[in-house]
């Protein structure tokens, strides 16, 4: 019971936290670029742009920060046995994240918010760049930590101490699994920000408001959007190929690939029974899975059934199959939405070349809703990554069931309900403020500060 509750709590708090993180990662770059343009060219429009997107950034950032505190503490709270077993290794990137990244981003964000009049233009722009560096460094270290759970490296098992211990810090820092996750996540952060900016700019372009702010915003977002969404796909595919090598079970589950085959067929669509671990029907194209993994029409891809037998022989009897139906569909949702975003970004890049925005009102109306797309892809991607690793908490090293804290279920019920409720309430407040400031648009003149008290006064 405690295990299931703790897993639900981790899932809810982590997915919720990751609603805010990608936008912080990506939008920071937008603002830094805009403010740098302001410093370079002295055009007040860039400053208005930076301030407008900055306002939305700050609301989102606050949500990311407070939900991040939970992440830092809940390994010890809910996963104490995990923390004891791998703390020697896993704790290091977490502590480094706090020391290198959290201090940097929070201190310089404070300076940025309050320092418009206290600092020179150049120093002020430098502050937002340091925030961007801080938040991206933070992503790197937490993903190296996660990468280690997916593909543990640089450790030995000390039987006497009853735990895993770090022997090679550089292996941890250069773990390819972590770097694949980093590139995939950072580029999806850029994509999230690009679609956020595209959607909100479209809202104003339709109404022909503040064109001097939203036309360049839209263009910048379209350029970054197309590059980033293609990068997400490339990084994702490279990661998938590596996944087959180091976490073949997760890879096989994401493709519902049951039996080892050479060449291996690609499952286009599949239906599962209620256990989620048995297939009822599927449509397969021969040889294509091998093509995806090897770029040629042959190559062995291990199947779920053979891997289960192999793991049972190596680790002892047990069920080593993740929830295939979930992983299969999360993977397809993520990839499908990802491809759709590439198409939309490409079209958005092409749009401004034609007479716009007059002729494109209908398209722009749709563009408001595409803001949701990256959130769907980000969430399904993480559900795939984290559930695809099950039943392991650290792949091949420690099972999730052995990592949980010895807590009474009542305690975890309390925190699960408490976090869920407060997160739901905060989401309402967050969306209310985002919509309010999104609609209000940029300040008319520069006299207004970054967090004005009356920006939404028109509503």
């Amino acid at each position, binding site marked *: 019971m405690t295990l299931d509750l703790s897993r639900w709590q981790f899932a809810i708090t982590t997915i919720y936290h990751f609603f805010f993180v990608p936008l912080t990662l990506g939008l920071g770059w937008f603002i830094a670029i805009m403010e740098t343009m302001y410093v370079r060219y002295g055009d007040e429009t860039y400053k208005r742009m930076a301030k407008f997107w900055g306002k939305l950034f700050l609301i989102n950032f606050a949500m990311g920060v407070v939900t991040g*505190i939970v992440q830092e503490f809940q390994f010890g709270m809910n996963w104490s046995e995990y923390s*004891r077993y791998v703390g020697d290794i896993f704790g290091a990137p977490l502590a480094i994240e706090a*020391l290198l990244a959290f201090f940097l981003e929070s*201190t310089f964000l404070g300076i940025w918010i309050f320092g418009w009049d206290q600092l020179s233009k150049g120093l002020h722009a430098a502050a937002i760049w340091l925030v961007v560096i801080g938040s991206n460094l933070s992503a790197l270290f937490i993903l190296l930590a996660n990468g280690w759970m997916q593909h543990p490296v640089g450790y030995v098992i000390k039987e006497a101490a009853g735990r895993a211990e770090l022997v090679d810090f550089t292996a941890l820092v250069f773990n390819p699994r972590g770097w694949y996750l980093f590139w995939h996540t950072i580029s999806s952060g850029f994509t999230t920000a690009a679609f956020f900016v595209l959607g909100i700019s479209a809202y104003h372009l339709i109404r022909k408001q503040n064109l001097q702010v939203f036309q360049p915003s839209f263009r910048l977002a379209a350029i970054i959007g197309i590059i980033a969404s293609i990068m997400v796909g490339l990084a994702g595919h490279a990661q998938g190929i590596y996944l087959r090598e180091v976490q073949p079970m997760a890879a096989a589950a994401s493709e519902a690939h049951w039996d080892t085959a050479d060449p291996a067929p690609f499952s286009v669509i599949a239906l599962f029974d209620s256990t989620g671990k048995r297939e009822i029907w599927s449509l397969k194209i021969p040889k294509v899975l091998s093509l995806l993994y090897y770029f040629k029409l042959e190559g062995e891809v291990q199947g779920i059934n053979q891997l289960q037998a192999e793991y049972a022989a190596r680790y002892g009897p047990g069920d080593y199959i993740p929830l295939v139906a979930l992983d299969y569909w999360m993977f397809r949702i993520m990839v499908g939405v990802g491809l759709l975003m590439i198409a939309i970004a490409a079209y958005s890049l092409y749009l401004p070349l034609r007479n716009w925005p007059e002729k494109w009102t209908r398209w722009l109306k749709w563009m408001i809703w595409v803001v949701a797309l990256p959130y769907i892809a980000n969430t399904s991607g993480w559900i795939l990554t984290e559930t695809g690793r099950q039943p392991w908490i650290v792949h091949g090293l420690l099972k999730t069931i052995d990592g949980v804290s010895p807590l009474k279920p009542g305690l975890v019920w309390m925190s699960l309900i408490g976090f869920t409720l407060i997160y739901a309430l905060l989401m309402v407040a967050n969306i209310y403020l985002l919509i309010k400031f999104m609609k209000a648009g940029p300040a008319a003149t520069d006299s207004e500060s970054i967090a004005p008290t009356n920006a939404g006064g028109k509503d």
Partner: protein
Amino acid sequence: MHFNTIWFLLIAVLYIGFFFLEGFDFGVGMLLPFLGKNDTERRTIINTIGPHWDGNEVWLLTAGGATFAAFPHWYATMFSGFYAAFFLLLLALILRGVAFEFRSKDENPKWRSLWDWAIFFGSLLPSLLLGVAFANLVQGVPINADMTYTGTFWTLLNPFGLLGGLLTIAAFILHGAVFLSLKTSGELTERARTTARKVWFQVVVLGFLVLISSNFTTNIQARLGVYKGLIPIFAIVAILLAGFFIRRKMEGWAFAMTGLFPRVMVSSLNPKWSLTIYNASSSPYTLKVMTIVGLIFIPIVLIYQGWSYWIFRKRITNDPKTLTY
């Protein structure tokens, strides 16, 4: 020096840094609804800590992360053992964190009042809980041979723990009031000064009680080599010196941490089951790596955080046009 000792010191530095820095902004948060008589004044109060509170809070996050990296068993035992307390702490910090950002974003008085109280409780509860938790660390809590905490949330709310919590609240309020008297102007400054004078006495009394009762409930004084017969004299001297020490609650925490050494969590069931810097620690290799990282980056952090205080060193006026939050 042994890496285990270095890390005990570094974590002490992080917690002391947190209590010192976040201490005054918790205090400011607790004073907010009472010292700020109207919206502009409340905004002024919030703006005094506006650029700093988030950076200050990172000291706690880093202390948590460093505890995980250097003393995984301490991290695991304390966070899972004090589960309900940490859950409440997190709820409070979540509400407090968004409150600073959200409050100024809408003019509705109800909206603002809601977030004002979020800031108040979000500052009060962590002060109480952290004070209680630290008092219990020193006093000892039921920890069994497997390093698992066997008490409940209520176990922590013993007289010494509560006394520690109250002292923390009072000390933070005092520090917050002193900070406000330095950063605001006009009437607000006067009110903050008056508050500081009032709270000062309560801090002295609570500090005295904690000092006396620590003699009976903990062995930190014996460990520090304080002769028992000297305690009353020591206490009187402490009170006399309180005016000097009061703004330096760092020493208080340093004192508690030194008394704890080399233990990090005392077991009340059996002294042998206490967590120490040796049995709770990471491997020498990890400690070495983390020492290098820590010794490089902690000074850098101190430099740029110090710089941020220097940038915003001026007093804040009650002029709505100049207020950011």
